[in-house]
């Protein structure tokens, strides 16, 4: 970038103060939006040359900053911001800032940016014409409803300086007027750098055809203008008060100079994100620009980082589901079912190769439908399900009827199919079927078809739950057995499938115990098999019984189970043989096998040994073997289980190593799930186990399912990631699947050039419902084909990208070192940003700024969080091997929303809410995950979706602690559990916790209480999870951004 600037030579000089004087210029680079600016720029930018300089210094300073910051890092004790030091940055920088102080607020930068944008435009001769029409300016804004463009020049110091000068100029409207006149002079000077411009533009244009809907929204004039410029123009035009609507459209939008800015609604989002900062908050986003940017240079002479860490983007409002996609294609299925990593499908191989992020989708076929909606069930009965003859696509809203309604054209393979007599309907004047409103499959993106007998290879199976329970000494002692028995018993009424449900039990220690539960018995009969080498099932029929018929026997069994093994002193575990026995019992029907495992398998096949203790293995080529199943028995068993439609859920409880890596394999290939309760103790973990087990047993489950995702010609899904087994190249076998499971897949282009305008995706899940009906759930979505990389970035969906990143990285840990997996994430991130920079940097001359698409502004943060997540973090000592593997298996199935929450948990301060009688729970807001967010007078909840950590500040008023903890408030918090006390505050807290839990019912968040300074618990529960901080040699957020930025700039 820097090279482009004419002024560069001067740059070495970079006296700290000078840049500021130049004020306006530094921003210039951003001006890229040029067209608009051109005219204005003339007025206010006297020294064009100086601009580049200003920017440059920041760049150069970057490296210097690094070391300083590190030294500067607060020591742990210092980390908690005392009330006295509310704003970190200001505290750090004081001396240097002197001159700037007025400007320091991030917001100013924004103002600065707006003006700068103009210069570039000037450069281009081509532009002026389209730009000039004043009317045209506004429309362009609406054009890009998605916030792609907003540049995020957050709180960059340099900018702030500019602001002052700018303000003087501020009245942009005026600038406009000068517009035409001023422009000519500028153009010549800028031309050289922008020579590349036209080329870029050319690329951009083609993308439009793909977006019919967008265009329609846009003002008529807009289409004529090239997209990048349009947006820019829009930004510019926006400056005048009149343009307010456009701003709304863009959340990230452009912020006019301070005085003007106030009225705009745009800010709101940014402001919320950075509660700490003043109102003007650094989020100046120029519509002007097609991207977000972040200045990463340091203020010369300051000790602090060049990055205003408060201005960095953070997902403090949780995952924002992409909706541009839905607006464009209203008949698409909801994004909770299907999310594409980018809704702009590239039209050529070369484009794919420049898109360094994963290209694919995340599918959660049974996600809970949005409130108030239901997936309509369609029964074609006599007609049979309408599908394309050739590609077998199901009828969907995007098929077109022709020939008076006698034929329909498949949207995926464009084959003309006949409409069967029963399904025939006349078409109206515009070619729509007149019975459209009675045909949900033709108007809804998600429907469920009732499948006729052709879709069955056997009669639909009943819901079947089989329990394989470890009853060895440690299982009994930890209380696991008792909780499990109680929970199962309490769920018997709610098991899906009413009278069809089947149930069975096997328990094991060093022998295997079968239970005859025949309905005619009053008590279950126990049969013990101790020959582990040659397993046989003693009683083929009555081990698996109908629950409603044998209800009383089952209840008797569950009631007596804990006492039966109360005195068991057996330490061994014949897990492998027991698993085989369970498999033999279940293989007739399939179903769900719940394994409760407490002792490392030690007898018979599938014996496992202790491993993972060897510190020296880490960092060597053998490291990954620790995360793979040790014994091929488990993989083979998993394959067999899937073949017979058996899904395995593992509940592992051991306080010692239990080789989750091996056990989890069973869940991985059978569509199951791993629940890990390290050092289970019933007094502590009872609630969690009870909640999760009962959810597992009672949630709606789809049985013996297969899933396939079809897509239009020229595109093909190549790899699938998640817990399932592939039955053929594109068919996922899922013995049981439910709303908590998501699957990711990557796609590639089969043809070098896509000729279609739209690509359609159709997810079809064929399953047996608990009621015994065979059903097909079909989700259909359309996505435009684009010819321009910028458009792909604009349409990108961070959540889906992160989800794929995460799965790819975890898979990589199975064949490589942890470090390699982390590096690959970073590498892809850098590549992607580099490509993006190449796209815009030249024309915009961005000097030392980091630029990234608005749509992916959170990607660096999530990537950082991913590198610090349990499966990937650190090395030997940073996480137990079992925890790593369990987290890995869990993260491979998580739907996008929950994954993002796990990666960037919420941290909420609640003491004020508890104290204020009138406060509403809605007012609670998330804080950035840095130690500075923790005020020693506060009370905080940390919630990652899997557990709560309640952090008591050292100076928290004793009244609160007393109210919440009762008599225990001074005790060791590791032994205190939270329960409701009879006072308002305690009720309120429990109310909050309950609300949080209800918002995410798939796991139970156990409460951990932690007091400030209470090591090592505090470090373990909270401090190690503050992803923005530097922890044990990892990067902090600001450093990470700097590092990424530096790498992006290398050979840029």
């Amino acid at each position, binding site marked *: 970038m820097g090279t482009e600037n004419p002024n560069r030579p001067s740059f070495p000089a970079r006296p700290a103060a000078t840049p500021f004087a130049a004020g306006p210029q530094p921003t210039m680079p951003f001006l890229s939006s040029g067209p608009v600016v051109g005219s204005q720029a003339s007025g206010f930018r006297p020294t064009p040359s100086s601009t580049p300089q200003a920017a440059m210094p920041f760049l150069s300073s970057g490296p210097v900053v690094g070391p300083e910051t590190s030294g500067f890092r607060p020591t742990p004790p210092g980390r908690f911001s005392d009330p006295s030091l509310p704003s970190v940055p200001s505290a750090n920088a004081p001396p240097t800032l002197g001159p700037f102080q007025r400007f320091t607020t991030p917001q100013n930068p924004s103002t600065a940016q707006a003006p700068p944008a103009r210069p570039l435009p000037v450069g281009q001769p081509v532009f002026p014409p389209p730009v000039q029409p004043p009317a045209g300016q506004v429309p362009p804004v609406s054009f890009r409803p998605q916030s792609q463009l907003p540049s995020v020049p957050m709180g960059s110091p340099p900018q702030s300086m500019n602001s002052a000068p700018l303000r003087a100029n501020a009245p942009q409207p005026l600038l406009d007027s000068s517009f035409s006149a001023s422009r000519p002079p500028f153009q010549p000077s800028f031309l050289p750098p922008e020579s590349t411009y036209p080329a870029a533009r050319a690329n951009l244009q083609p993308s439009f055809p793909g977006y019919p809907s967008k265009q329609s929204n846009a003002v008529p004039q807009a289409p004529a203008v090239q997209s990048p410029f349009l947006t820019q123009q829009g930004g510019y035009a926006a400056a005048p008060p009149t343009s307010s609507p456009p701003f709304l459209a863009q959340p990230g939008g452009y912020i006019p100079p301070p005085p003007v800015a106030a009225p705009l609604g745009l800010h709101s989002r940014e402001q919320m994100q950075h509660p700490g900062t003043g109102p003007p908050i650094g989020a100046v986003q120029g519509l002007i620009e097609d991207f977000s940017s972040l200045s990463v240079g340091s203020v010369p002479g300051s000790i602090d980082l060049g990055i205003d860490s408060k201005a960095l983007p953070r997902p403090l409002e949780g995952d924002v589901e992409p909706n541009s996609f839905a607006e464009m294609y209203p008949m698409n299925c909801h994004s909770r079912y299907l999310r594409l990593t980018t809704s702009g499908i590239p039209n050529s191989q070369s484009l794919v190769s420049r898109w360094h992020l994963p290209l694919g989708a995340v599918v959660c076929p049974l996600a809970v439908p949005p409130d108030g909606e239901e997936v309509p069930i369609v029964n074609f009965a006599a007609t049979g399900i309408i599908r394309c003859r050739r590609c077998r696509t199901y009828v969907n809203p995007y098929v077109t009827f022709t020939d008076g309604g006698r034929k329909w054209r498949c949207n995926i393979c464009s084959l003309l199919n006949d409409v069967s007599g029963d399904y025939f309907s006349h078409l109206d004047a515009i070619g729509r079927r007149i019975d459209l409103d009675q045909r949900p499959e033709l108007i809804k993106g998600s429907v469920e078809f009732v499948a006729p007998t052709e879709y069955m290879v056997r009669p639909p199976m009943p819901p079947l739950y089989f329990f394989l329970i470890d009853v060895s000494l440690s299982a009994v002692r930890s209380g696991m057995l008792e909780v499990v028995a109680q929970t199962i018993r309490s769920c018997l009424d709610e098991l899906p499938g009413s009278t069809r449900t089947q149930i069975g039990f096997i328990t094991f220690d060093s022998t295997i115990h079968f239970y005859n539960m025949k309905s005619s018995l009053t008590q279950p009969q126990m049969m013990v098999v101790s020959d582990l080498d040659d397993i046989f099932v003693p009683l083929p029929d009555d081990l698996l019984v109908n629950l409603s018929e044998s209800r009383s026997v089952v209840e008797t069994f569950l009631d007596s189970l804990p006492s039966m093994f109360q005195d068991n002193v057996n330490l061994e575990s014949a897990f492998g043989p027991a698993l085989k026995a369970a498999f033999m019992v279940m293989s007739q029907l399939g179903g769900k096998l719940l394994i409760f495992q407490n002792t490392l398998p030690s007898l018979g096949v599938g014996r496992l040994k202790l491993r993972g203790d060897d510190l020296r293995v880490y960092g060597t080529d053998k490291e990954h073997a620790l995360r793979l199943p040790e014994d*091929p028995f488990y*993989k083979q068993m*998993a*394959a067999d289980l899937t073949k017979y439609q058996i899904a395995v859920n593992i509940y592992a409880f051991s306080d010692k190593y239990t080789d989750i890596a091996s056990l989890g394999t069973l869940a991985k*290939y059978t569509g199951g799930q791993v629940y890990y309760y390290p050092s289970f103790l019933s007094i502590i973990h009872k609630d969690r186990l009870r909640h999760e087990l009962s959810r597992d047993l009672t949630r709606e489950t789809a049985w013996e399912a297969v899933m396939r995702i079809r897509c239009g010609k020229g595109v093909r899904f190549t790899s699938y990631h998640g817990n399932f087994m*592939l*039955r*053929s190249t594109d068919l996922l076998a899922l013995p049981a699947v439910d709303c908590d499971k998501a699957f990711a897949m990557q796609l590639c282009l089969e043809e070098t050039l896509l000729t279609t305008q739209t690509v359609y995706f159709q997810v079809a899940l064929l399953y047996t419902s608990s009621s015994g009906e065979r059903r097909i759930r079909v989700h259909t979505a359309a996505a435009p084909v684009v010819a321009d990389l910028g458009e792909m970035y604009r349409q990108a969906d961070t959540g889906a990208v992160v989800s794929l990143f995460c799965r790819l990285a975890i898979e990589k840990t199975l064949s490589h070192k942890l470090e390699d997996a982390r590096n690959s994430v970073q590498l892809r991130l850098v590549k992607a940003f580099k490509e993006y920079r190449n796209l815009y940097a030249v024309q915009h001359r961005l000097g030392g700024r980091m630029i990234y698409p608005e749509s992916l502004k959170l990607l660096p943060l999530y990537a950082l969080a991913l590198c610090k997540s349990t499966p990937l973090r650190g090395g030997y000592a940073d996480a137990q091997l079992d925890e790593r593997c369990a987290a890995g298996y869990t993260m491979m199935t998580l739907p996008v929303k929950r994954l993002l929450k796990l990666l960037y948990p919420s941290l909420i301060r609640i003491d004020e809410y508890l104290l204020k009688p009138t406060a509403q729970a809605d007012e609670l807001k998330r804080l950035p995950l840095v130690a500075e967010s923790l005020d020693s007078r506060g009370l905080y909840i940390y919630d990652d979706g899997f557990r709560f950590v309640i952090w008591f500040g050292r100076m928290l008023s004793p009244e609160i602690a007393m109210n919440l903890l009762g008599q225990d408030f001074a005790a060791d918090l590791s032994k205190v559990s939270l329960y409701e006390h009879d006072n308002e505050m305690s009720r309120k807290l429990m109310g909050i916790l309950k609300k949080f839990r209800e918002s995410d019912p798939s796991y139970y968040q156990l409460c951990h209480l932690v007091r400030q300074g209470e090591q090592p618990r505090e470090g373990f529960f909270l401090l190690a999870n503050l992803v923005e901080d530097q922890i044990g040699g990892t990067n902090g957020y600001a450093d990470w951004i700097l590092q990424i930025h530096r790498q992006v700039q290398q050979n840029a």
Partner: protein
Amino acid sequence: MGDLMSWLLSFFFHGSLVGLIGYQLMCLADLEFDYMNPYDSSSRINRVILPEFIIQGVLCLIHLVTGHWFMFLVSLPYLYYNVRLYMRRQHLLDVTEIFNQLNREKQLRIFKLVHLIVLLTTSIFWMIWSIGGI
């Protein structure tokens, strides 16, 4: 005469190896085009993998014993690769990951096939040569 016998032997062994590899490739292709499910495909392939390794080992031995140094050296890398796979217990196809490994496994076998066909033609050549030499 002894030479002819050894070349004949080498010819038949090579022929059978080509057959085994071809069979594995066919199974993989069937799997790819969905004519066969992964369970059948992997079990069929796994059934012939050990025989393939053994035949190849014996062949190397024959070359060594009969003093065909060049042929022995050319087959050595193949033998080494097989032994290494076997020692690491990675010689069998993994049914659960078979689709992810499909391309690699296919390329591997195509490579082996080419290698074997080259050796097969050489042994045919030497066989005919030694017939002429009688």
